[in-house]
Structure formats: structure tokens, C-alpha cells
């Protein structure tokens, strides 16, 4: 009968010789299974003298523990090697991709529109909307353009065949939303109204018969021209970033007085004419049912499309409307 120490030595040798987990399993069976010398030796213990049995039993237990440890260690080694081999076999070139880019792109107008909305929402404004096909009243009448007023000619208006001739039109600006908001909401009012506008224009690099504007309106107890200038300045800093500033120049719009154009100064000192603004005209307040002695307000508006062009370095407005996927997927 083999000595326990010899069994340990043999287990060590055979475990080292095993190169796969299966071979190691056979070694385990041979060394610790039912028919193994170890089990046989344990069975033989019953015939021994108590003292000798105790001694031999301890030796056998120690050998068993050693063998288990040897086998476990070898098993871990072989398992690690097998995993490493499998991983190596599974090597993949991560640029072997046949599926095309799966991400869609928001239109540059939408991106610009949403950025503008976000800036104003951050300044405490809500976002209002109105119809694109408008009545002559909201587009002009409520905004202090009396019928026949030459200022109506400044807007190359497109009319549609709905109702009495000349009563229904494609809105020329987002300002009718101002009037609708004032009719429907008690001041104080802090809203912006982005939207699509129309004019009779031939498409070229800088004109389109369809364009987008965003309009701002504030009505409160003692809103001033200084508030307007400050708001434009705050917007400029928030949207364009540090180093940009703004100025107001006197101008004329029927629906505001005083009226102004506002320009943005770039960090290099050059100016960008951005939009129009002014204090809401008392006649507009009255047309919308707001007492101009109780409330004061300002409005401002500017084009979204041109901002989009500037922001993305596009040089022709018509590109915005071709829907060439090679254009859309660049932004």
C-alpha cells in the first residue's frame, strides 16, 4: 500500500501532466474517486490499532487536503488558460461594421429654434404659438396698421382664397401671436413666439418666401425701454456667448413706439443687424384689451434662419430647403 506522501507526489505529477480540464477530471477521479488508493487506504483504517489508526488517519486527511489543493490549483490554471484561448479565438476587428450610421439629424432650423427657446425659457419666458394662416386683423389691424396704411406695403404679403378677398393671409411676421397672447392672457406676460412666416419673395441666397422668426413680448407694470435694452443684452450674452454685446438704434414699426433696430457686436468689433424691437404701442394694447395706463411692455423679433446660417457656416438660404441628405446629415 502506498504511503500518503507518495500519493501526494503522484497527484502532483499527474495534475501537472493534465493539459485540459477533462484530463484533470480523470486525474481527480483516479486520485480521490471511489476506487482511488486514498479511499482504499481509508477503508483499511478500520483494521488498525486505535493509536496507529489515529496516526494513519491524520496522515491520510493531510494527504487528501494536499491533493484537493493541488487539483483545485491546477483546475484554476487550466480554466484560465481555456478562457484565454477562447477569448483569443473570439478576436474581432471592431471596425468591421457594415451597418451605416444609425443616427438621424435634426434640421438646422429646429436646432437653432430649440436653442433660442431654451435661452428664453431660462430667462423665465413661456413659448406661445399661433396660426400660420392669419387674419388681416391679427397680422396688421391689431398691430396698429390701419387699412390702407402704406406701412402694410413694407410687408410683401401673400394672401389666400379664404373668406372675403384680402382678409386671410400667410402671416408676414410672428407679431400676430403677440396680439393673440395679449387678448387671451392677463398680464404680466413673458412669452416668446417662434414660428414660420411668409412673404412674396423670389428665392435666392438671402431670401426665401418662407422663413422663421422668433418674437418676444413682455408686459408688466412698469416695463421700460431700459428693460428692453437689458433683455436684448442678456439674450446676446446667453446665446452668442461672452464678448458679444448689443446696441439699439431708433427705427420705425407701427406696433411699437419707441421702436429700434438691434445689432449684435462680435468680439472682433463688427456688427450684425439682427432684428427689430420697441415698446408696445398704446394702440396695440387697446386693440388687445389691455389698458396702456396700467401696463407697459416691449416686444422684439428676429430671424431664425439667418442665425442658423451663421451658426453652421452655410452661405445660401436655399440649402435649408433642398433636403439633400448630404446637407441634413452634416449637422
Amino acid at each position, binding site marked *: 500500500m502506498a504511503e500518503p506522501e507518495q500519493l501526494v507526489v503522484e497527484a502532483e505529477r499527474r495534475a501537472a501532466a493534465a493539459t485540459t480540464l477533462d484530463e484533470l477530471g480523470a486525474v481527480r477521479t483516479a486520485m480521490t474517486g471511489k476506487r482511488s488508493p486514498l479511499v482504499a487506504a481509508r477503508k483499511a483504517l478500520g483494521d488498525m490499532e486505535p493509536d496507529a489508526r489515529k496516526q494513519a488517519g491524520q496522515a491520510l486527511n493531510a494527504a487528501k487536503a494536499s491533493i484537493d489543493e493541488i487539483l483545485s490549483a491546477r483546475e484554476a490554471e487550466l480554466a484560465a488558460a481555456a478562457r484565454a484561448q477562447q477569448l483569443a479565438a473570439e478576436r474581432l476587428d471592431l471596425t468591421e461594421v457594415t451597418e451605416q450610421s444609425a443616427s438621424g439629424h435634426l434640421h438646422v432650423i429646429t436646432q437653432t429654434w430649440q436653442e433660442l427657446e431654451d435661452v428664453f425659457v431660462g430667462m423665465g419666458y413661456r413659448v406661445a404659438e399661433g396660426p400660420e394662416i392669419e387674419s388681416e386683423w391679427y397680422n396688421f389691424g391689431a398691430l396698429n396698421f390701419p387699412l390702407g396704411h402704406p406701412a402694410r406695403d413694407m410687408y410683401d404679403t*401673400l394672401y389666400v382664397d379664404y373668406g372675403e378677398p384680402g382678409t386671410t393671409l400667410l402671416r408676414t411676421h410672428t407679431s400676430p401671436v403677440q396680439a393673440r397672447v395679449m387678448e387671451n392672457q392677463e398680464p404680466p406676460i413673458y412669452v416668446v413666439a417662434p414660428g*414660420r412666416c411668409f412673404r412674396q419673395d423670389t428665392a435666392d441666397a438671402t431670401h426665401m418666401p418662407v422663413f422663421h422668426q422668433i418674437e418676444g413680448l413682455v408686459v408688466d407694470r412698469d416695463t421700460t425701454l431700459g428693460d428692453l435694452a437689458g433683455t436684448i443684452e442678456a439674450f446676446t450674452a446667453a446665446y452668442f456667448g461672452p464678448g458679444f454685446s448689443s*446696441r439699439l438704434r431708433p427705427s420705425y414699426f407701427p406696433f411699437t413706439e419707441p421702436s429700434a433696430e438691434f445689432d449684435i457686436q462680435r468680439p472682433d468689433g463688427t456688427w450684425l443687424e439682427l432684428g427689430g424691437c420697441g415698446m408696445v404701442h398704446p394702440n396695440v394694447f387697446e386693440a388687445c384689451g389691455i389698458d396702456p395706463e396700467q401696463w407697459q411692455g416691449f416686444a422684439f423679433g428676429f430671424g431664425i434662419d439667418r442665425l442658423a446660417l451663421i451658426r453652421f457656416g452655410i452661405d445660401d438660404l436655399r440649402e435649408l430647403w433642398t433636403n439633400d441628405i448630404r446637407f441634413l446629415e452634416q449637422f
Partner: protein
Amino acid sequence: MKVLLSWLREFAPDIDGDPEQLAEVLADLGLAVEELSHVGRGLDGIVIAEVLATRPHPDADRIHLVDVDAGDGEALQVCCGAFNMAVGDLVPLATVGTTMPNGIEIARRKMRGEWSNGMLCSGAEIGMGDDHEGILILEQDLSLGLPLAEALGIHPDVLFDLEVNPNRPDAMSVMGVARDLAARMGVPFSVAVPDVNQTGTPAAERASVSIAAPDFCQRFGVRVLDNVPSGASPRWMANRLLAVGQRPINAVVDLSNYVMFELGQPNHTYDLNLVPGGELGVRMAHRGEELITLDGTARALTTYDGVIVNRDDEAIGLAGIMGGASTEISTDTRSVLLEAAWWDPMTIARTARRLGLRSEASARFERGADPDIIPLALDRFAELAAALGSTTAPGMIDAAGNRPEPSTVRVRSRRVNSILGTDLSTSEMTGLLEPIGFACETGGDSQDFNVTIPSWRLDSATEIDVIEEVGRLHGFSKIARTVPVTEQAGALTSQQLDRRQVRALLTGMGISEAMPLPFLAPGDLAAAGLGDDGITVTNPLVAEESIMRTSLRPGLLKALAYNAARRTTGVSLFEIGRVNPGGGGDLPDEHEHLAVILAGQEATAATTLWRRLARHLTVTRPGVVNGPVDGLHPGRSGQVLADGQPVGALGEIDPQVLDAYEIDERVAWLEVDLGALLEADRALAPYRAPSRYPSSDVDLAFTVPDEVSADEVSATIAEAGGELLASVALFDVFRSDQLGEGHRSLAFTLRFEAPDRTLNDAEVAKARQSCIDAVTATHNASLRG
């Protein structure tokens, strides 16, 4: 509106400084400078030359060879691209070595083999007028070889091209701009009194004016001038007119224009001999009345047009717009009636627009001329004419129509500061207003004051108008900037947020956002299988932009076709935009639609997309019902339901439509009324804790007739499976001969589970059988083997 600095300084000599800074001041006054240019600069090296001969270039058609004498008697050959000169004409020659005003240096060079020793100049090239086409032909009395500037009396000057807003009638004159600028700069401003040497029979005995339209004509002034000059105007005047863009014609026309530019008062001259008795009248035209205007055109008039008539009540002029041919002055004219009148702005605007006759004069009347300037304008004309030898009959005929009293406005100081955000005292306000002619009357202890609006500010009539003037003269840039504070929390509405969610979902699915023009051409809708044209634009510039859309489909099909024509297929696009499907109240109905077009994909791709969209928006009971839809493949189309209500359609574009657009792939389509979808019942299903007990899966395959949709079978299973059925999912579809014509196999996986226990076999079997029974009974289907 173009003004010269030297001209401004005739009213305010102390206006001075860097032209760029003056431009800034003008902009700050609301007179934006569109262009600042230097006149009479860069003329060194340009001399007077005479054309000796012209002959074709042997090797070029667009240029010819011109021999000129630049004063030394030698013939100098120049190549020239303009052909408007004749032998003997005097022309400006830029000699070799000259640097032109635009910076180009003139060198001796060969043009197609022929030497060019300098360049002949157009008016535009040397800052004299706008003519780029021809060479400037000069008067005959100039000495050859003399520098052009010296010969023409041109002095360096600064030209401001101003943008004048409709509310600034005063700024339509040199005088008005000078007044504004002087006020802002705090320098004196004055208008010289013209020196009119009157002689002969009083005007009142030679002419008269009667006004039968007193609202249209508030004032009509006439002077009678004799011995009017028939030649050219003096060079200094011609130079100024050229600089401001007005071509000199002859002395009388130039004088008229000069006075208009200077004082803002348009005026007109009649040949006195052609006006019987010198009698003029003003009335509104009769319907159908005709008048031949100065340009020789017969004009049909309406009762909204004002006319000047003679003694016989015959129209001889279109008031404020254009004179009549019958009284036009000629080289034979010795005596003239000089008219300066005030016409109603709206009437002038309407007539000018209707007849397409907008002019420098109508532009001034439309804004509102100054009725008080009329005597000064007549006298200024007379003074300038006297320098050319004409005489002026004593007196002026001054006929009056209905002239409103000058309006006085009560201005509240507090209101001024409240609107502007300033802290100005009453005296600071009046100090800003007085220099621009707004006479202020303060009184007592009140901080408020009365303002009399000047006659040249027809636009001003109310307190807010005066407040604007205070702000303008004070300077918007000096107003302290503040940001109003609101207690309102800024936010998007839930609909606006949902719209963004939809966009994010779709782009996340690889679909890009398109933006087709919202206009269609007539027939576009029919070509897309969508029926008749909807609302039309009554005044489109092009027919392609004359129809409002009822669906987003034509626009996206066009976008797809555009890409297909550029060999890009498999394009997926979406659009969110407004459509006008018909109907409406005060305004046409306007709906916001969402449409998705998936090129190279079958109809079921649209179903998948719709389900993801509906799931994302937590639409209650989203559904698809097979059935034909206009313009879609009749066997591959259906309605989209949200909470049982139709909100759109989906499927594949009709192959015939695709042919029309030259699209060669299948195209899946989804269009929903986004507004209706977002307003439909939307809620998450009530929360159900995930069961901790194992579930059981059962696969069932049925042979189902084609008329029954998979959705219907699925719904039947869901109902029959009851509480224990956790999910049902279609996982396989196939057709075969064995299944027979008009049938296909639909295989579903059913998962059963209970929240409180592990289901036993008997329970699962029972539930399975209920599902089988329900499907076979309801749908004429059979369970497959």
C-alpha cells in the same frame, strides 16, 4: 436719401468731425447710414481729353480703339469698352499712373495686342452719378488737359446714404437731417432767408388757384417767374445733384430737384403760356377721366386721384405724382407758374402705387410734407433762378384748403421716464425737444408740459410720439440697461415637450428631419394621389408656390426624389409641419402633422415605427386597421388609431405615385395628426409588480384567413388569456400551398405567470386552451399541428 456733408453745413456750419463718427451719430438718431463714401477724392491724374478718332479693335469686338488729345495735341491711343462717344466729345481720361477712387492703378498695357495709354472713365468710376455703362461726356467749354476736379469745380466731400424710416418725413431733406444732427451735436442750426428780387406785374394779377378738394390739398402756393433759363444749370449744382444720384437735365428741372432735396418740398413748373389766364384748380378726378402725363403715357384716373385743372376744368397734371404733357416747359418757355403744394399722403400713396409711379416727389408727399415750408421753397427756387437771370413777379399766391390746427400734446414727465427707463428732469426733456422744433410750454408747479408738434412732423400727434423723440435725442445707448424680473417659471408646454420627444425618438431611430417648402404646385396633390388642390395663394410669384398643402406627403416625396436623382437611396426622413386639410371657421383649419418616409422599406416598417412612437408617447390603445388609403398601396395601407380614434394613416406609397416621382424602391409611409395624437388619451398602464415566481411560455401557431389581421388575433388571445397572460408576441408568419390560398400561419409566444405563485401545469393548460378556443371560434382559424 443721400446727403452731402458740405450741404448739411450750409444749415449748420459747425457740423464737423470724422465722417465715420458722424455716421455713428446719424445711426444713433435713427438715420442709419447704408453707405458712407468720399466724393471728389482720387481724381488726381484724371484730365479732360478730346476724342479725335475711334476705330474697331482688330482683334476684339467688345472694345474699340479711341484716339484722344489730352491737351498736348498728340493722339493718344486708349482701348475702351464703351461706345457712346463721338469724335469731338470731351471725356475724362485717367492717365497712366493714376490711382482710381476704387484703388485700381492705371498702367500702360496691351489689350489683345493693342496699346492702351490710360482709361476713359464712366460717371460711376469717378463718383459722378450712378452710370456704369457709358463714358461720361463732358461739356464742350472745358480746356483740354486740365485736371477734371479743377475743370468741374469738384471739391472733396462726404456722402451719406441714409435709410429714412416712414415716420421721419423731416429727414427727407438736407435741412431736416442737418436739424437733427445739429440738435444732437449741440451746434447752431439756421435756415437762410432767400433773397428774392421781385419785379413786374404782381403774381396775383397773372395767376390764381382754386381748391375744390380742400382735404386733399391743404395748401397750394404759386409764384410767377419770368425769363427762366433755358440752358444747363450751374456746374456746382449739377455736381451736387450728380452726387446724390440725380442726373442733371436742364436748369429748370435741376432747380426743382435741388429745392426738393434741400428743403423736402417737391415742386412743379408749368409753362405760363400754356395755362390760360394762369388759372389753376385742384379737384379729385372723375371716374374714367384721362390725362397724358409728362412721359407721354395716357393715364386712366379714378375718383381717388387728385388732379390739377386749368380754367376749362381739363386735367393738366396728376397732383403730387407727375405733371401733364400739355403744359410742359420747353426751350421756348419764358414764364412759368411755379407750384409748391401739400397733398394728402394716403391719396398720393394710393395713386402712386396704382400707377406704378413712385418717385422722389411721391416719397416725400407719402410721408407727409411740411405745409409751412411752401413759401420758403418757392422763394429758394426764385433766388436760385435769379442767379441764372430770371425774375420773379411780386407776391405769392397762397391758396388754402382745410388746414388742421397745429396739434398740442400734453406730456407727462413721469410717463416719459416710465416708458424710457430714464430719470430726466422736465427741463432736460424740453432741452432735447426744442432744438428739433418741438415747442415746449412748461408752467406752474407741474412737471408736465405742453408740446406743439412742428409742421414737418406729420407722423407725430400723441404723447408716445413725443416720448420717442425724447428717447431718440437723448440716445438709446445712454439709457441704463435693466433686466425685468418675473416670478413666472419659464417652461415649455407639455405639447412642446412632447414634440421635442418625438423629434428625439425619430432621430434616435436614424431618421433625419427634412424641411420641404410648404407650398405646392397645382396638381401636386393629385400626383401624390391626394385629391384636389386645397387653399390657394392668390398672389404667388410663381405657380409652384401657389397651393397650400393638405398633407406632408408631396413635400417628402419630392425630397426623396431629389435624393434618388442624386443616387442616394434608402433615405429616411421625417417632417413636423402645418397642413390645411380643409374646413375651418374664421380661419382655415390648421393641423400640425408628423410624417415619416422610409425609402427601401416595406409597409410593416411603418407599423413598427408607429408602435414605438405610440409606446413612447404612452398612447392608450394604439392600433392599426388594414384598409385602402388614397395614394398608398391598396393592399399595404391602413388607418392609425389612438384610443380607438383615427389619427392618421400608414403603409407603402402607391407604386404608381412612386413612378411619377421616379423613385425605384419601396417606400414606407406614416402620417399622423400630431395635435390629435398628443391630445388623445395617453397614460401608462397601471403599475404591476414583476412576479417573483417562474413564468411558463407556450407557443401557438394558427392557420388564419388573410382578412384577419395579426393584431386582431393577438387581441383575442390577450383577452382570452385573462389575468395569467403576461404577454403575447407574434414571432413567425409563413404561407404555403399546404395552408391554402388566402391563409397564412401566424405563430405566437404566450407567457403565463401569476403574481403570487408558480403556475401548475393544469392552470397553464387551461389558459392555453381558452386562447385556442377563442381564436378558432372568433377568426375562422385553426390550430396547427
